[in-house]
């Protein structure tokens, strides 16, 4: 096939006319780059979250007043633990601590008495650290929080201002693994009592209760029982949360895509215009080929091959640039759109390539490109030799 004269001519015309294609390829590459980086990023975050979903509790019990989440009384936990079919009831204490109006961190209080939490903690810390964590007022912080502390001259300990006006000095015990930044960047892990003090909860109050229901058939029944426990109980299930994530990311990616469709339509208009303005040189080329005995079908084949090459070339290039931007350069600016701007550090996104996403980009691009250039290309290919050469 490589010695084929058709193929030879095809490569020849591709490279001789590279100036003509330069603008088209540049614009198309940019457009592909834009879309692919957004989809890469949203897919990667979705993938990371999905990989941890099994650890999410089946049900969460909260108390809401006027739509706001308010603290719960601790005593309710014992009542819940007695319900049949419920396991791993965990008291959770968490909330945001605002350093100033812009930057905040998620404070999470660990319950040492809870078996699961202490197991998870033992995995996170070695023995010595664990002992120190238990004995002194200290905390584990994410990388973003640590950088903030450091830049504000708190390299060893930070003075929290509690709602009661007292200043609480807490030592930094360890910075969490930077690989987990997606979940831990803005996280501060403290002993539960300390967390309650900083968040302004009374000693018998907690933020909410997480629990598991091993048998999914019982979930609906248990949810009804929980709702009857106290007034203003708000129970959210795992499935609802998962759908919320799915919709959230679809919404961000989908809204972007809806806007992006306009860009693609503009691109197709530009392509149509560009190809319609076939200059006399191109027409003459076609005319010469036809008088040399090429049929219209051959010419259409040549043009089709040329355009398919352009599509493939700009697609691969755009995709590659998108990949570099998201996974090597870690998506500056764009990641703020998805994660919010708050104590940003670099997050390593898991390079998860979703082939369906690639197919989505390719189909969108190939359909518009080829549909737009089809008519102009046909018009050029069917030029009469007599018309063009005279």
């Amino acid at each position, binding site marked *: 096939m490589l010695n084929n004269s058709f193929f030879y001519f095809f490569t020849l015309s591709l490279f001789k006319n590279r100036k003509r294609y330069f603008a088209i390829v540049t614009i198309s590459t940019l457009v592909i780059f834009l879309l692919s980086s957004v989809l890469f990023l949203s897919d990667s975050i979705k993938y990371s979250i999905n990989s941890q979903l099994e650890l999410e509790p089946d049900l969460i019990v909260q108390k809401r007043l006027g739509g706001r989440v308010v603290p719960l009384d601790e005593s309710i936990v014992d009542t819940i633990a007695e319900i049949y079919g419920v396991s791993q009831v965990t008291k959770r204490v968490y909330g945001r601590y605002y350093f100033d109006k812009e930057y905040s961190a998620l404070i999470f209080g660990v319950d040492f008495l809870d078996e699961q939490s202490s197991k998870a903690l033992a995995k*996170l810390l070695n023995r010595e650290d664990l002992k120190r964590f238990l004995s002194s007022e200290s905390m584990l912080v994410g990388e973003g929080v640590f950088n903030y502390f450091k830049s504000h001259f708190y390299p060893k300990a930070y003075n929290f201002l509690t709602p009661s006006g007292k200043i609480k000095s807490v030592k930094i015990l360890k910075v969490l*693994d930077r690989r987990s930044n997606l979940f831990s960047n803005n996280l501060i892990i403290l002993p539960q009592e300390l967390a309650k003090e900083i968040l302004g909860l009374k000693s018998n109050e907690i933020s909410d209760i997480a629990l598991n229901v091993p048998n999914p058939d019982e979930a609906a029944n248990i949810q009804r029982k929980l709702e009857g426990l106290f007034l203003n109980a708000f129970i959210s299930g795992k499935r609802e949360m998962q759908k919320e*994530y799915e919709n959230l990311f679809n919404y961000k990616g989908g809204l972007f895509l809806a806007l992006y469709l306009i860009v693609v339509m503009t691109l197709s208009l530009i392509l149509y215009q560009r190809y319609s303005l076939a200059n006399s040189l191109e027409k003459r080329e076609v005319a010469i080929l036809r008088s040399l005995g090429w049929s219209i079908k051959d010419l259409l084949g040549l043009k089709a091959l040329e355009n398919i090459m352009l599509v493939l070339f700009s697609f691969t290039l755009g995709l*590659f640039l998108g990949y570099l931007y998201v996974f090597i350069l870690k998506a500056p600016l764009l990641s703020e759109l998805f994660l919010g701007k708050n104590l940003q550090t670099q997050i390593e996104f898991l390079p998860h390539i979703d082939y369906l996403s690639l197919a989505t980009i390719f189909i969108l691009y190939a359909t518009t490109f080829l549909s737009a250039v089809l008519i102009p290309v046909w018009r050029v290919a069917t030029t009469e030799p007599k018309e063009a050469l005279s």
Partner: protein
Amino acid sequence: MVKEFIVLASILILFILSMLLHSLLFDTKGSKSAYRSIVALTHIVEPSFAPSSFEPIIRKGKKSRTNSIYPELPQINYLDFAYAQ
């Protein structure tokens, strides 16, 4: 021109291969277990960045960046030293 074409095509294939290689060689397992150790403790499967749906939100204001009663220490800027001199 066939040669140039083949060179171009192989560069594109190289791009694709390098993407594939990077995604395959990336330590996904390590990252996932790092996530796991955090999520197993907090049971919060949500990026820790911005305030999310279940939290009460304080509106962001750009103007007064610090609490006036309990001000944050200013961030260090090395150029300040240069200008001071």
